[in-house]
């Protein structure tokens, strides 16, 4: 589904990713862990096509297409979804309008007409319940004045409505209390299926107690230095990252 090979990327002239390779097959859940500044968030941004992130070498294909050739919206329409670590506040654009525009873009991709407003609102309200977000937030500006936890729930709401093929969660667990964490985990687990995959970028093993990964990777110095199963996460929890960084160096 996603094949990343020897990816090099830089931001403002600084090399961040230095030869990252990763293969994600349908149905799999991958966790990417690593110390601060190792390039975890950069990977998500590069895959989503954020301006200012320049790929200097390597390749990324998604569902057989060269991802790096596609515009950000084309990647999304193919089914790639990045849950932002810091979702953007857009006052004046209602959350409902934003969500419907996103859903309609997916429908257009499939050659379908825009969803009718009444059906859409019903769906949106139901999914609000699933992520434990007050439907009143649909009326507010996109993420405007949302707390950190509310923003993360709103990202999850978008993912539930868009039903992507690949969900990349960029530190969706950071700053969440245990109840909110379980809401996120329930949302992701409800979407797990044979033709959908997830990549979870996280600092903490805690999230993996609730969403069990098939693979755990450690990112350090811009590339993956160790891969294993979920026991690797437990080892990291116990020993920290220093021993791995030492090994690599």
């Amino acid at each position, binding site marked *: 589904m996603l094949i990343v090979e020897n990816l090099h990327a830089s931001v403002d002239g600084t090399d961040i990713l230095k030869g990252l390779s990763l293969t994600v097959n349908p149905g799999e859940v991958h966790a990417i862990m690593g110390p601060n500044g190792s390039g975890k968030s950069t990977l998500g941004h590069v895959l989503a096509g954020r301006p200012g992130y320049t790929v200097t070498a390597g390749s990324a294909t998604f569902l057989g297409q060269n991802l790096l050739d596609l515009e950000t919206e084309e990647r999304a329409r193919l089914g790639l979804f990045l849950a932002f670590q810091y979702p953007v506040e857009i006052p004046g654009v209602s959350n409902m*309008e934003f969500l419907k525009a996103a859903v309609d873009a997916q429908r257009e991709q499939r050659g379908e007409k825009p969803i009718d407003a009444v059906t859409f609102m019903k769906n949106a309200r139901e999914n609000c319940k699933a992520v434990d977000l007050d439907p009143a937030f649909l009326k507010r500006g996109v993420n405007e004045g949302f707390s950190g936890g509310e923003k993360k729930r709103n990202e999850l709401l978008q993912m539930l409505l868009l039903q992507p093929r690949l969900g990349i969660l960029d530190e969706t667990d950071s700053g969440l209390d245990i109840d909110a964490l379980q809401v996120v985990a329930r949302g992701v687990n409800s979407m797990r299926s044979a033709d959908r995959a997830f990549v979870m970028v996280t600092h903490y093993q805690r999230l993996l107690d609730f969403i069990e990964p098939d693979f755990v990777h450690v990112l350090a110095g811009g590339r993956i230095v160790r891969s294993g199963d979920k026991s690797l996460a437990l080892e990291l929890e116990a020993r920290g990252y220093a021993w791995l960084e030492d090994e690599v160096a």
Partner: protein
Amino acid sequence: MTDFMRLPLDSAAAGAPLWLQDYLREARSRWEGSTLPTRKTEEWKYTGLQALRVSYAAASEGVVGLAEAGVELPHFGGYRLVFINGRYCAEHSDGNLPEGVSLVRFADAGPAQAAAIRDHLGAAVGREEGLFTALNDASLEDGVFVEIEARVRVEQPLHVVWISGNQEQAFSINQRLLVLCRQDSTASVIEQFSGARSEQQSFTNGVTELLLEDGATLNHYRIHLEEAAAAHIGRQHARLETGATLNSFHLALGSVLKRIDVVVDHCGQRAHSELNGLYLPRGDEHVDYHTCIEHRVPNCTSTETFRGIIGDEATAVFNGRIHIHRDAQKTNAQLSNRNLLTSTRAEVNTKPELEIYADDVQCSHGATVAQLDEMSLHYLRSRGVSRAQAQTMLSFGFVNEVVDTVRCEPLRDYLRGILTRRFARDPAITGSMV
């Protein structure tokens, strides 16, 4: 001197009531010999008056129906008074006047009302407020006088619609509104200026005076929907006495020439004003807002937010002046002006102008000219929304925030509808529909 300038001097304003004649005589002598400002006049540096070089005749009564002229006439639930080409139109005016409110055309004023008009007309706008006010004064035949009695609270808005319709020649109209809010009264007044959907050339000069006595609250909306060749040079002056509150909202779509001067004069302590506005010229249109907030006495507050989206080859001017007099200690005055240029050929000239003579005041101002925020665009696009649609959504959002300040719900919905159509959004989903 062009035709419209001679009009008030040539015709003796036959329709004006007798008690207004000396006011008119005085104004005519002020007006006589006036010349139009040029680009060298500081106040008119960025707004040319070429559009006034048309031969404008007096407005006639021969007016086609509103539907044929493409004029929308919304209803906001209260009393509605409609003027077409400066003439009162009984057919479209309706609603019941709430208790404690008198609303009368100058032409129909009884002796007591006439006396009140004579006492207050020109009280806010003054005698020195420029050429076009003199023209308006000198041309006064009819106008609207609204008086809210003391301690009366009016829930429904009073809606005054000024329409420039179609007639064979280019024409000019002068319109006047005088609102007197007595002590501790509360009311809402909506002024709507609409034009026929055509290439009709017209020039409207609309002057509004708002007088707020002690403790009065007024929500005032001045909505300019004229487009194409409908020129408008207008002025609104508000005078706030002790503890009075003015919430003032402005909107201007562009046209060949639009220049609106807004003055809010804080004359009594603890007066508060909120001034919000939007201007949206496109094509080769032009809009110019000059605002001036006067703080004459201590302990008053004012906030002002104007936003503009300027597209195509359109031009806009925003000049925001705050004048804090020597005695106006403890003043808190805020001004913000943000502009979005959606084309490389669009232009805006924005200038905050602070004149502060008191030393214990809080005053902030900011003016920005920008393109759309890249990170917001990216966020929308990362959900599959195309770049073009994301740009439209963000532009709509930029103005929608200011529309949210409109307190009158039916008006807010109406304006949102206009903007939704303008920004090609789905009306079912942009409003508060959940």
